[in-house]
């Protein structure tokens, strides 16, 4: 079973959750949305989190609407931006969602 983890909390408030890799495991998917996209603008902040996700084979996406509303320019090529239609697809492809 694969899980879609949606994360709407700022790294700057909830670093502990990112340190635990949002409790995802191999094959799971993470979607950054709302305040979780804020850290995408800093090339340092999410580097460790994304490296760990990559080596654990956890794909990371971000919701483009929340990125552009906040004026963030994504510094991480490994994070794919997608719209709400992509969000829907991720939910369908996974077996369930966990909303942090």
């Amino acid at each position: 079973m694969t899980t879609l983890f949606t994360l709407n909390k700022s790294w700057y408030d909830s670093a502990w959750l990112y340190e635990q890799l949002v409790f995802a495991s191999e094959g799971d998917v993470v979607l950054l949305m709302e305040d979780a996209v804020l850290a995408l603008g800093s090339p340092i902040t999410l580097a460790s989190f994304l490296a760990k996700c990559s080596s654990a084979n956890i794909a990371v996406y971000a919701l483009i609407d929340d990125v552009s509303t906040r004026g963030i320019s994504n510094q991480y090529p490994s994070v794919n931006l997608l719209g709400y239609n992509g969000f829907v697809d991720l939910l369908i492809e996974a077996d369930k969602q966990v909303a942090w």
Partner: protein
Amino acid sequence: MNAQKLMLVFTSAPYSNSNGQEALDVALIGAAFEQDVSLLFLHDGVFQIKAGQQTSAGIKQTTKAFAAVNDFGIDDVYVHDLSLIARGLNTEDMMVDVKEIDTKAISSLLNQHDRVLTF
């Protein structure tokens, strides 16, 4: 309709908001529907089941109900080990029998459930 494995995840401390109470209500309804319900306490959520909470004038001690979850057929109560350690707590400080598990075990556990609701 088969029974689902339902997990309630508690992430915030009691008293400052109603998350604990309202997550517990979902758990008890799940148990009443004969679902396979388990509880996971992590981050400040571990304070929900900390022993030694004292009532204060006019404030509800919502967490007493946790001590009775076994009576509702909820036996799987998990606590995140790192969350306890970071707060100077251990399983003996908890008001219910809990299984202490690590981050990796939590990941596996989430995988084994059909529905996971976080509060």
